[in-house]
C-alpha cells in the first residue's frame, strides 16, 4: 500500500535527510521513531504528498506521487490519504459534522451525512455534532481529527505525534481508536513519533537516525 524508494530531502545546504525505504501493507501498522529535528515531520509530509522529495519516489496504492500535478495530487491525497497532525486544526466557522462533510466534499466524494454521523457515533461524539470545534475539549478534538482522517476511507492514514500531548491513559486510548478505525477500513497506518510509549503498542518499527 505504501512504498518508498531512497527518499531525500534538504532544507538549504546544511540539513540533508536520507530516509530509509518504507513499506507498509493495507491493514498493517508502522511506527516511525526518531528524535526531534531528525526529519520525522518532513518524512510524513513527503509521504502525504504535502511536499515533493528532492530525490526518490513515494508509491501510495501503487501510484507514484511524483507523477501527479498540483491539483491532481490534492485530489488524490484527499481521497486516499488521511493525515492527523500534531495539533488539531479545524475550519472554525463550521461545526463538528460540517467539518467532516467539508472533508468529504473536497475529496471529490459525494457528501454522506449518515456516514459522518456513524463515525462520530463510534468515536463517542454523537452528542457534539453541532458544537463549534473550539468549544470541544482536547480529547474530543483529537477524536474529531481521527474521524476526519478516516471519513473518506483512505488507503493510508498518517499520524504525526498523535499522542505527544496526552497522558498515558488517553495516549493508549487514542492509539487504539486509531488502530480500530484504520482496521475497519483496511487502511495502512503510519505513525511518526518520538513518544517511546508507543513502542510497546505498535511492534512494526523503523527508527530514524
Amino acid at each position, binding site marked *: 500500500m505504501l512504498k518508498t524508494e531512497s527518499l531525500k530531502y534538504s532544507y538549504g545546504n546544511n540539513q540533508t535527510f536520507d530516509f530509509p525505504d518504507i513499506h507498509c501493507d493495507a491493514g498493517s501498522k508502522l511506527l516511525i521513531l526518531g528524535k526531534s529535528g531528525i526529519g520525522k515531520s518532513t518524512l510524513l509530509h513527503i509521504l502525504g504528498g504535502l511536499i515533493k522529495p528532492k530525490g526518490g519516489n513515494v508509491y501510495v496504492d501503487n501510484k507514484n506521487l511524483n507523477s501527479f500535478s*498540483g491539483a491532481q495530487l490534492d*485530489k488524490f*491525497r484527499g481521497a486516499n490519504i488521511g493525515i492527523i497532525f500534531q495539533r488539531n*486544526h*479545524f475550519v472554525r466557522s463550521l461545526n463538528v459534522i460540517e467539518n467532516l462533510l467539508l472533508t468529504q*466534499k473536497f475529496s471529490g466524494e459525494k457528501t454522506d451525512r449518515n456516514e459522518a454521523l456513524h463515525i462520530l457515533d463510534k468515536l463517542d461524539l454523537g452528542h457534539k455534532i453541532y458544537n463549534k470545534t473550539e468549544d470541544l475539549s482536547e480529547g474530543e478534538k483529537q477524536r474529531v481529527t481521527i474521524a476526519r482522517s478516516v471519513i473518506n476511507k483512505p488507503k493510508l492514514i498518517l499520524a504525526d505525534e498523535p499522542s505527544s500531548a496526552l497522558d498515558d491513559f488517553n495516549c493508549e486510548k487514542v492509539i487504539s481508536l486509531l488502530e480500530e478505525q484504520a482496521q475497519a477500513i483496511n487502511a495502512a497506518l503510519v505513525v511518526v513519533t518520538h513518544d517511546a510509549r508507543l513502542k510497546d503498542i505498535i511492534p512494526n518499527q523503523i527508527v530514524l537516525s
Partner: protein
Amino acid sequence: MNLLKLAWRNVITNPLNLLLSVVLFALGIGLINFLLLLNDQLKDKFDKNLAEIDMVIGAKGSPLQMILCNMYHIDNPTGNISVKNAKPFLRPGHPLIKRSVPLSLGDSYKSFRIVGTNHSILELYNGEIAEGKLWTGGLEATIGAAVAEETGLSLGQQFVSSHGFDDELDMTHDHASFTVKGILKPTGSVLDQLILVPSAAIWEVHDHSEDELDVHGEAEEHAGHNHKGDEHHGHHHQEHDHSEHDHHHHGDHDHGGHHHEAHVHDNTIEDLLSHEDKEITSILVQFKSRTNFQALNMPRNINENTDLQAASPAIEINRLYSMIGVGTDAIRYLALLIAFVSGLSIFISLYKSMRERKYELSLMRVSGASRSNLLVLILLEGLILAVIGFVVGIVLSHVAMQIAGNVMSDTYRYQFVAWEMGKNELVLLGLSLVLGAVASIIPAIKAFKTDIHQTLSKG
C-alpha cells in the same frame, strides 16, 4: 457544503468584522446611489418643468430668481410688471410668439401657491381636468392634484388665501374665499402643486386687503366693463374695486348677451389687457420657432430696451446646474473616498483573517482542496461582503431618498419617488462586485500560495 456556503459561513463567523466592512461599504454605495437618485429626480423635475418655455418676462432683478419663482415656484418674485408693459407680449398675433401665459403670484394657501392666470397654462404642462371644471371668473379655483391630495380640498369647498408664500405668517385675506371648482389630473410637473385662479381674482383679493373701503357705489362705473378691445377704458376706474357683487347694482349697463357672472372678469386675455393699470408677475413665453434669429435675440432686446427683464430658462437652469455641480462633485468625491476605504476595510479584514486561518486553509488542501479552490473561496468571501454592503447601501439610499423627499417636497414643489429603482443601480452592483474582487484578490492569492508544508510543520 460547497465553496459558496463555506464562504458565507466564514463571512458571518466574525460579526464585528462583517459589520465594519458592510457598514463602510453600504455608506459608500448608499451615498453614491442617493446622490444619483436625487440628481436624476431633480434633473427630471427641472426638465419636466421646463415645459418648452423659451422665455420668461418679469420685473428686473435676478434672472435666475425670476425663473425659479415663475417656472418652479420655489423662490420669491422679483417684483411685478404692469399690464401696460406686458401688453405687447400678451396680445395675440405677435409674429414670434406661439403662446404666452400671464402669471400673477403673491398668495398662497397652506403653502401652495395661488397663481392668477388663464387656461393657456394648461397647454404648457399638458394639464387636464380630472373633476369639476376649469376656473373661469370671480373667485373660482382649479387646484392641482397634489394640492387636492395634501390639503384635502374637494369640489365646492371654500378656502381663504393668505398673502405671501409663508403659511406661518398670519396674513389671511379675510374677505375673499375661493371656491374649488375643479381638480386637475396629476401631470408630474409643477402644475400639480398650484392653485389656479383668474388673474383678476388676485387683484380683487389684494384690493380688498389694501383698501378696506367699500366702494360698491363707484364700482358701477367700471363694472360695465366688458368693452372688449377697448384698451383705453381701463384708466377710467383705476381706483376701483372689481368685486363680483358690484354688478348686482348695474344690470342696465350690461351689454347684450353677457351674463352677469361671466362678464365681471371673464379671464380672457382681452379682459386682462383692458386693465393696463393692473399688475401681473410674469409672462411665460413659447416661441413659434426656437431657431428664429429674432426670437433668440428677443430676451436681449427686452432687457436693453424696456423696464422688463427677460430670461431664457435653459440658460439659467444650466447656470444653476453648474453652480450646484460644485457641491455635488465634492460629495461625489467623498462617496468615492468612502467606497475606497470600504474596499480597503474588506482587504484588511480578509488579509488579517488569512494569518489566522492559514492552518485551516492548509487543512482544506490536505483534505483535497486545490489551490484554486482556496483562491475562489477567498474571492467569494470578498464578493459576499460587497453584495451585502451593496444591498444595505441601496436600501439606505432609498430610505434617505424617502426622508429627503418628505423634507424637500414642500421646498421644491415636487413629489420625489423614493422606492423606484434608479437606473444606475445595476452599474453600482457591477462596481461593488469589482470593488469586492479587487479588495480580495491579494488575500486570495495569498491563500493560493499557502505553503502547507511550512504551515503545518510549525503548527
